[in-house]
């Protein structure tokens, strides 16, 4: 605290004179976050800033993320990009950042606070609702469906689950959600549990996989159970396997956010904030439904990653 004065960036630990933008994400190993990282790196190149990108191993590790944010604060970045696993838990550190005059750009699911100068996010709930609509359309608005969700407690997991569920329950009374199981986004575990769901519910008409790992698991399960064509699979996010599955008809389609765009917009907004330019408070990076028909369009190509 005693070195308040150094926040102009003279004593940057990062050796170059480029402004330093620290990004603390919700994850880092998984494809989605790697795509966000790609976007961020692209913007960093473009705007000539230095970035670091880190995130905890699972979306349950609220405390690990807070430790990362704390360590980042001590590195005195010019701006911070932050995707909060739990925004309330990070309030004290956000306050500290504000005190140190480090602008914060929230991304992914946003932060329930006035502190971030901008938020680059999409609405998980609305995106999942779109997936629900599509699912309903494919199965003829009636029958049994199930959900394979990647996480029971994280904002993303809950948002997608509830968005999907609420949409079905409110709009499609003839569709019944018979099971919701959680597979940690691990494709192997998701495969096994999707198989068990199909086993328990022979009349199942569709399964929604709430992220890449879950969706792949569902696709594998359908193949291993020889139910290709009998069960409609709707996915979320992208990645080579989902894209292939959609192209080959194993999967009806998926909703994708634009992770590369999220990363890009976050850094872009951060750079603007550093320069003192005004930034839009909310940047909607959008979400898209993609399937066999539109997968090769430019709009979708820009939003999906392999």
């Amino acid at each position: 605290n005693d070195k308040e004065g150094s926040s102009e960036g003279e004593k940057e630990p990062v050796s170059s004179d480029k402004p330093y933008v620290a990004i603390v994400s919700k994850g880092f190993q998984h494809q989605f976050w790697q795509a966000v990282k790609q976007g961020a790196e692209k913007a960093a190149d473009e705007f000539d800033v230095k970035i670091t990108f880190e995130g905890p191993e699972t979306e349950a590790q609220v405390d690990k993320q807070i430790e990362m944010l704390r360590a980042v604060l001590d590195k005195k970045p010019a701006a911070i990009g932050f995707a909060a696993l739990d925004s309330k838990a990070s309030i004290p550190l956000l306050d500290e950042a504000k005190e140190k005059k480090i602008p914060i750009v929230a991304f992914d699911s946003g932060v329930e606070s006035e502190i971030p100068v901008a938020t680059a996010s999409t609405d998980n709930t609305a995106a999942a609702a779109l997936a629900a609509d599509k699912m309903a359309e494919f199965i003829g608005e009636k029958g049994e469906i199930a959900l394979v969700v990647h996480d029971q407690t994280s904002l993303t997991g809950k948002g997608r689950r509830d968005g999907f569920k609420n949409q079905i329950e409110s709009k499609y009374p003839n569709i019944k959600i018979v099971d919701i199981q959680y597979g940690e986004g691990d494709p192997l575990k998701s495969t096994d549990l999707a198989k068990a769901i199909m086993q328990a519910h022979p009349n199942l008409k569709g399964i929604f996989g709430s992220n890449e790992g879950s969706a792949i698991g569902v696709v594998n399960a359908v193949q291993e159970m020889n139910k290709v064509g009998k069960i409609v699979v709707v996915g979320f996010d992208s990645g080579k396997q989902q894209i292939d599955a959609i192209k080959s008809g194993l999967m009806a389609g998926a909703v994708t956010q634009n992770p590369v765009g999220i990363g890009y917009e976050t850094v872009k907004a951060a750079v603007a904030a550093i320069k003192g330019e005004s930034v839009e408070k909310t940047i909607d990076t959008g979400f898209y439904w993609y399937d066999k028909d539109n997968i090769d369009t430019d709009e979708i190509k820009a939003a999906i990653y392999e």
Partner: protein
Amino acid sequence: MKADTIDQITVTKKKNKGIPSNTLQQVLAFSSLVVLVIFFSFASSSFMQWSNIVGILLSTAVIGILALGATFVIITGGIDLSVGTVMTLSSVITGIIIVNSDLPIIVGVVGGILTGALCGLLCGLAITKLKIPPFVATLAMMMIAKGLALVISKAAPIYFTDKPMFTKIALGSIIPGISIPNAVIIFFVLGIIAAIILSKTILGRFNLAIGSNEDATKLSGVNVDYWKMTIYTLAGAFTGIAGVLMASRLNSAQPALGQGYELEAIAAVVIGGTSLSGGKGTIIGTIIGALIMSVLTNGLRVLSIPQEWQTVVVGFVIILAVYMDILRRGKG
């Protein structure tokens, strides 16, 4: 984790009347598993279907193979925390060889297995030559393998989509007619091999001896360091095989996977009656332990029990199964 001699003596006292045959013992070991299977068969009509049974076996294969390797290590009185991430590293290496370098599938398979064996050997070296406790050495290997898997794959999955034959390794079926996936067959074949190694070879004999009393074994002129390294390498090779199967089943090498699998593997071993203090254990026990875990998980899923309750139930059933096993052996 200490051998409880006093209890063993007490236990032996009870044996007085009518020593049961070894076969009966073996059969009884299945009891928890059988009870579970019967219970779920009655609770849900979908449980006993062929496809579900194959599903259970398939989901046991990967963890089961890890557990086979871990059994050897645990019998030495050691532990291997690295199996989860080394498995991942092995599948990434397989991916790199087959997909990125476009070499024949067999090279990739061998490469994956060797990667596992090499990691095992390195753990063994650290444990025997540097005298690092197994927990620490394999914890370090867990982290190193995890990091390397991400570095090598550039944190992106490697897809085998262009190598359709590769998927056949786990999901094809070499036995015509019956639709049992190869992964299951490989698991059981490896189980038999492991059982033979443990009971019929000097490796197995020394493994048990080292676990019972390392010092006495050393003073008998046995090259304990050599055998320990061999055992860790062997366990690593099993891990490598698990990695290849995992990649084949998922049709991709997933670099972020694997952590947490070590606990599941160790759990299967310990539920199977192998003692963490070393010196005793059986392969059949490990296989049963692994099956108990996957029958349980599958059964509860088929019953559509909410997931949070599933974990609670699994916890209780584990206690129960192990307690039944203890009672059985007490009586046996």
